[in-house]
């Protein structure tokens, strides 16, 4: 039987978000990704760099050294590395050992995130970056954060794939009985799993009531949707919103509503920690910076409630190493997500193309 509880695995042949673009400067930033210590920085011309954070010489983390222009200088004996990982200076000798280098990882800046490919660099294809365009699309406005959560990344994906928990974890903002009671559909393909839930003709929860009232001056019943889309191995984009009840939103006309995307990509750091990048983008009040701040703070508060639950869950898993989860109907989305990711991991291990 496959274990849901203890499976901490992740594929290496995938793009992982490692930083918000604004986090990267012309200075050394250490980050552990997929159990590997990396050092990140931005070159003078703005391109991002990701190197292994261990000196070729005696393994001191390069992040303990310094950056001179685009060159990394080791903080121990002064070996220098170019942005492609090649050593360009060795002390007290006229030549450079031809094998001296540190691993450099394919890295791309896109959708306001910095993405790194941890597996076989020959397979790194920009087209495989998960679609998170709402994060820098001019028709959408928003912002977000990165939080380091002390749990395996899969637990965060589980959390996002089933929003029934809103009713119980986030009851004062977005959760109410309607979410827990509404039926939902689950679909999947090779790389994605989607959970769709429509709650028609309901009273909106406090958060959505406020948003809709701002734009459409409406306080009555709404049709509410949550369309959760997982893309393997760790991205979950959630299309959420409400529209004035009966104005055709379920059929595709959302003009009488407000729409947001909760963008999430959860990068495995160690087996027991992850870097959780999220953002909330909306398609209304685009110029209203205070709305952006309010939403960012609101979502940050909601996610801190999740963080609390997830860290406690990880702790309980560790304390009960012989226990398996039970799975309910509501877990279908999370289970498809896990199965798709497991397939990626298995295929990679079969062909071993992740070889480093």
């Amino acid at each position: 039987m496959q274990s849901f509880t203890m499976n901490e695995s992740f594929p290496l042949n995938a793009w992982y978000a490692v930083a918000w673009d604004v986090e990267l400067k012309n200075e050394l930033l250490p980050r552990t990704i997929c159990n590997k210590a990396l050092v990140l920085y931005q070159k003078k011309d703005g391109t991002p760099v990701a190197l292994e954070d261990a000196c070729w010489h005696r393994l001191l983390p390069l992040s303990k050294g310094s950056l001179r222009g685009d060159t990394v200088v080791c903080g121990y004996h002064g070996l220098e590395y170019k942005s492609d990982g090649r050593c360009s200076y060795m002390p007290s000798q006229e030549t450079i050992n031809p094998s001296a280098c540190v691993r450099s990882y394919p890295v791309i800046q896109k959708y306001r995130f910095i993405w790194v490919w941890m597996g076989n660099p020959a397979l790194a294809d920009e087209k495989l970056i998960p679609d998170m365009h709402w994060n820098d699309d001019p028709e959408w406005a928003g912002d977000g954060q990165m939080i380091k959560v002390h749990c395996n990344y899969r637990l965060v994906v589980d959390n996002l794939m089933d929003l029934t928990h809103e009713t119980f974890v986030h009851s004062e903002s977005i959760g109410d009985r309607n979410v827990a009671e509404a039926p939902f559909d689950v679909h999947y393909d090779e790389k994605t799993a989607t959970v769709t839930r429509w709650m028609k003709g309901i009273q909106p929860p406090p958060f959505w009531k406020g948003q809709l009232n701002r734009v459409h001056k409406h306080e009555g019943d709404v049709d509410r949707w949550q369309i959760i889309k997982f893309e393997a191995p760790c991205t979950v984009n959630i299309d959420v919103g409400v529209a004035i009840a009966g104005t055709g939103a379920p059929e595709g006309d959302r003009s009488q509503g407000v729409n947001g995307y909760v963008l999430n990509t959860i990068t495995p750091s160690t087996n027991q920690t992850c870097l959780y990048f999220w953002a909330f983008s909306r398609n209304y009040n685009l110029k209203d910076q205070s709305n952006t701040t309010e939403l960012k703070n609101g979502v940050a508060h909601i996610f801190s409630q999740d963080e609390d639950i997830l860290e406690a869950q990880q702790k309980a898993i560790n304390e009960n190493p012989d226990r398996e989860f039970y799975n309910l109907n509501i877990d279908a989305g999370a289970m498809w997500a896990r199965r798709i990711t497991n397939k990626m991991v298995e295929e990679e291990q079969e062909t071993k193309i992740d070889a480093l």
Partner: protein
Amino acid sequence: MRYRNSWIDATVVAIEQVAKSVMQIQILPLNGATECYTVGSHIDVSVLIDGKTEIRSYSLVGEYESNTPYIIAVKLLPSSKGGSKYMWSLAAGNKIRISQPTNNFELSHNTNDYLLIAAGIGITPIIGMAKTLKRKTGLTVKMLYAGNNKKEMPFLEELQSLLGVDLMLHYSDAQGFYNTTKLIDLASAKTQIYLCGPLPFMNAVRKTWEDGPFENSNLRFETFGASGLFAPQDFLVKIPRFDLQIKVKKNKTILQALEDAHIDVMYDCKKGECGLCQVDILEYSGDIDHRDFFFSESEKGENDKLCACVSRVANGSITIDTSYRGV
């Protein structure tokens, strides 16, 4: 990157002569499981020379495929220290000891313009690179493959069908030593160059790059011992501090001869890269055949020191001092 070697037992599953003096050897670990590797990797093989085990490194030919033996190709070098003779003596079914694959010659994927340069048996790490690069789209991949003549150059047809007109061939028996300055025309500032071949050829290419317009660090090369400017011969080494005179046989190194005489010398890489085995040259006759990559050309010209693990003397003898200062 340096990893601790873990040694495993393996079987020679097939041998096949793929060119006049090149034997292709397929090796499968006893447990049947090859480890995944990236192009440019090598394995170490424990070889038997005069009853003593030594370690030789051989590049893995081609790209990793699961459930497929490791493939290496060994050129029979009559002047070598005996490693190639041992490898050529292997037959299918023989047991040998090998290490896990390690890569000191890693292909970077951060450009779209590549120049691969192989001479002689230096083709072994390069062929896998050509395959990997050709599978990606949007890249310019050019290659020079030089050798004595067609008969001595393995994998020719495979490369021709892979690279077509982007493969340039040079036969030095007919055309003489390749003029490496021509390579500059094949490159631009963003070209990454991967080079492997015999020492004089690599030195010529390196000099071309040092004198040329492009960034030196774009030229990556892998060394494999055993080649110099002169064929190896026996020579005498005097070490006055120990009141000793020892003979270095043509299939031995100075380092080995010193060790056999119980004189301690520090070393690490044993392939002329780290410089730890350097000794002082007090006097010499004939020519010093510097075979290392540690000293610069001007340091080599001064003939004050040499790397005992690879460098030799031709047509003469040498007097050296080690770093021992006890009484």
